[in-house]
């Protein structure tokens, strides 16, 4: 093995062969490190088109607004971006697998409603209520996956159907009222437990809980996509479904697991949002599906599947959050904000396409 590795590293195109060989070990070792470092930088920084955009945005806003560049504003942005970030991580997995999930906003509302109803009306304890909400999300995702694979229905159609179904179920569950509502609150039942609120708006050592949730989920998502056979299967199925099948990778299993994870994450987002809003309702998270897809696209994941990563999507979610925050600080009207977001999505994707072609990454 050692010999082969040596052979690998002495190919013609290697920049280190240009270093004169008269100065031995130290210089050659250093040059090797430099060329290796260069390679790492090339592979990763260039992959990070979105991170460049994020840095530009931060630098620009830091100069443009005196209120932008400070810790409390950043914590604020983090809280505001957290829901989109959580959903975007799941959406990334779905999209890399050549799918798309339009139901995430509705599933978020359904899960949140389930948890809120369980703890405030059914009197279940907090942990059970949360588990019930997460379980609802995961189950919905599982069902979506089964419908897509077993029913052979395109992802777009199946999740579109699930979007209205889940929204409807949430409305039925909450009877169209916020949970807890003032009506029930008068009867002195139905306040949300403090623990649930803490999940959305609490802090640990000054760090907002949602920030911790994002970090944990991003790390887990990154591990799944880069370090597990499941992640490999998702990339393979998204890159070429037939080829994956012929290589022994189960399309059905991969798809179902991916959508289940997505559903679970929609549940997490639902609970965090409930905590932040201090209540749940059946109409929360409207438009969240498109927001999460936008974050994924800005993050450099290919909408046709097979390429991309969760870290990019996290950055994408933050770009959107910072943009919204910054434009507010600059007193740009909400109407114009939408126009600007649209232009930014197009700009980032054009840049990304160019970068891929130019550097063959």
């Amino acid at each position, binding site marked *: 093995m050692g010999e082969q*590795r040596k052979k690998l590293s002495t190919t013609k195109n290697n920049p280190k062969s240009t270093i004169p060989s008269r100065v031995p070990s130290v210089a050659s070792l250093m040059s090797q490190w430099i060329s290796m470092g260069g390679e790492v930088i090339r592979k990763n920084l260039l992959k990070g088109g979105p991170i460049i955009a994020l840095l530009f945005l931060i630098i620009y806003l830091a100069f443009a607004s005196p209120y932008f560049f400070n810790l409390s504003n950043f914590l604020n942005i983090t809280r505001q971006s957290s829901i989109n970030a959580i959903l975007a991580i799941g959406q990334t997995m779905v999209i890399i697998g050549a799918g798309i999930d339009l139901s995430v906003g509705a599933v978020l509302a359904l899960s949140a409603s389930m948890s809120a109803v369980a703890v405030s009306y059914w009197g279940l304890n907090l942990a059970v209520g949360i588990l019930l909400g997460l379980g609802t999300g995961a189950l919905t995702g599982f069902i979506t996956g089964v419908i897509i694979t077993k029913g052979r229905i395109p992802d777009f159609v199946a999740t579109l159907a699930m979007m209205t179904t889940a929204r409807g179920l949430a409305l039925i569950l909450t009877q169209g009222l916020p949970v807890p509502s003032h009506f029930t609150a008068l009867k002195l039942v139905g306040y949300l437990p403090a623990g649930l609120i803490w999940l959305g708006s609490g802090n640990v050592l000054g760090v907002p809980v949602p920030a911790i949730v994002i970090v944990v989920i991003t790390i887990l998502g990154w591990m799944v996509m880069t370090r597990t*056979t499941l992640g490999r*299967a998702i990339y393979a199925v998204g890159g070429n479904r037939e080829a994956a099948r012929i290589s*022994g990778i189960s399309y059905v299993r991969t798809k179902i697991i991916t959508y289940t994870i997505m559903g679970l994450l929609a549940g997490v987002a639902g609970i965090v949002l409930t905590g932040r809003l201090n209540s749940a309702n059946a109409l929360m998270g409207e438009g969240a599906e498109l927001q999460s897809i936008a974050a994924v696209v800005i993050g450099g994941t*290919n909408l046709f599947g097979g390429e991309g990563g969760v870290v990019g999507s996290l950055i994408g979610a933050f770009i959107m959050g910072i943009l919204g925050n910054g434009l507010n600080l600059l007193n740009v009207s909400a109407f114009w904000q939408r126009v600007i977001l649209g232009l930014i999505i197009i700009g980032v994707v054009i840049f990304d396409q160019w970068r891929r072609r130019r550097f*063959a*990454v």
Partner: protein
Amino acid sequence: MSEKPLLRLEAIDKSFPGVHALDHVDFDLYKGETHILLGENGAGKSTLVKILSGSLPKDSGRIILRGKQVEITSPYHARSLGIGMVYQELSLIPSLSVAENIFLGRLPKSRFFFVDWPGIYKKAQQILKRLNLNIDPTVPVRHLSLAEQQLVEIAKVLSLNEQILLFDEPTSALSEEERQQLFNLVNELRERGISIIYISHHLSEVPLVGQRVTVLRDGKKIATLPVNEADEDTIIRMMVGRELKEQFPKEETSPGKPILKVQGLEIKGALNHVDFTLHEGEIVGIFGLLGAGCTTLVRALFGLEKIDSGKIYINGRRVTISSPEKAIGLGLGYLTRDRKDGLIHPMSVVSNITLASLKGISQLGLLKHRKERQVGEKYVNELRIHPPDLTRKLMYLSGGNQQKVALSKWLCSGSKILIFDEPTRGIDVGTKAEIFQLFNQLTKEGVGILMISSELPEILAMADRIFAMRRGTVTAEYRRGETTQEKLLKSVS
């Protein structure tokens, strides 16, 4: 040929990130000649012709066509300059009919802007006739075999009546008969004054179609010489830059017990009562022409075709194989004839290599990256995958190098029964020996290999037994050394 060249390329240079694909290459083409372009996988052949066809921009250099310098900006532009190309990776649209594909982008219209369908079908039929091709021009291309698709692709370019034709490995998917037809056609075109650049890894084709030969190596032009000076040894030495080992290093093995047995396999309209047995440590070759059913047979074994009747035994146990997953579970591996069907283009080289052996490089679902890299490095080195960069995305490899990756995937899969449909398709002469060496290693470990090949020398040298097929029936069986090219061809046609 003493007048000025029709087309001259001067100092064409092209780099991709990490690869200098063409290094100041000069090349010329005269009216009415077939100029053959040779070189190892990744030498830059496709890149050169793609620059001519307008599908890749050059970095620097000059293209002089009919005495005038031109900048070819797109395939459309190339076409208007009289240049047509048959791509190595076919460019047909699967869901469109044969006729639509042939006339793509220039469907003849009748009055009132409506497409003149009867006229198109008739024209398409005429063009297909020239290739002796009997396909219904109304069927969607996805229903055609790879060889048929290749011929349609050629028909499409022929229908353009261009003055310069670029053929990038046009015969790699064809069997003997269609190859002969293609040679006749190429020679006929040339006599009509058309100029052709022809890329192939089949050195035996050189004297049959070419007038001059140019050899590329690592993006540099090594030499251009007339065909009568270009005997195989000379060419090979120029291509690989070293002496070549034995081309077919077959090692005798003593086959063990039967691992795969097929009895009376029947698929309506495709296979007719096929019987055969594959033993441990044995290489069985299957040989047949277009439409003989070889590919259908192996697809059926891998659960990709519905079987009407017949029995399959693996290690003496009767099995039904309903899906590829099941087949893999039973220890089978299958390299598809069209490598596109087995590769994940946006994924890295190493991930493609290990795709069918994820169990072997993981524990509890967690990948062991070090182990994976070791497996990847082994094949990158042994099969000379170029550039030797494990993390490069597969889509940025040359055709032959992609084929090596597709093959590696099964070589390392640990499968006990390997089915290879044209394993060396598009692979250069220098690497073939390496591949067969790996076959030997596997058969020594008791793996049985079922190999479809239309390369006569290869199948004659490497297969312990050869089955000849014609129209879905096995017409003859030979042991190694029992038959000759002529005899084998006779039993299939």
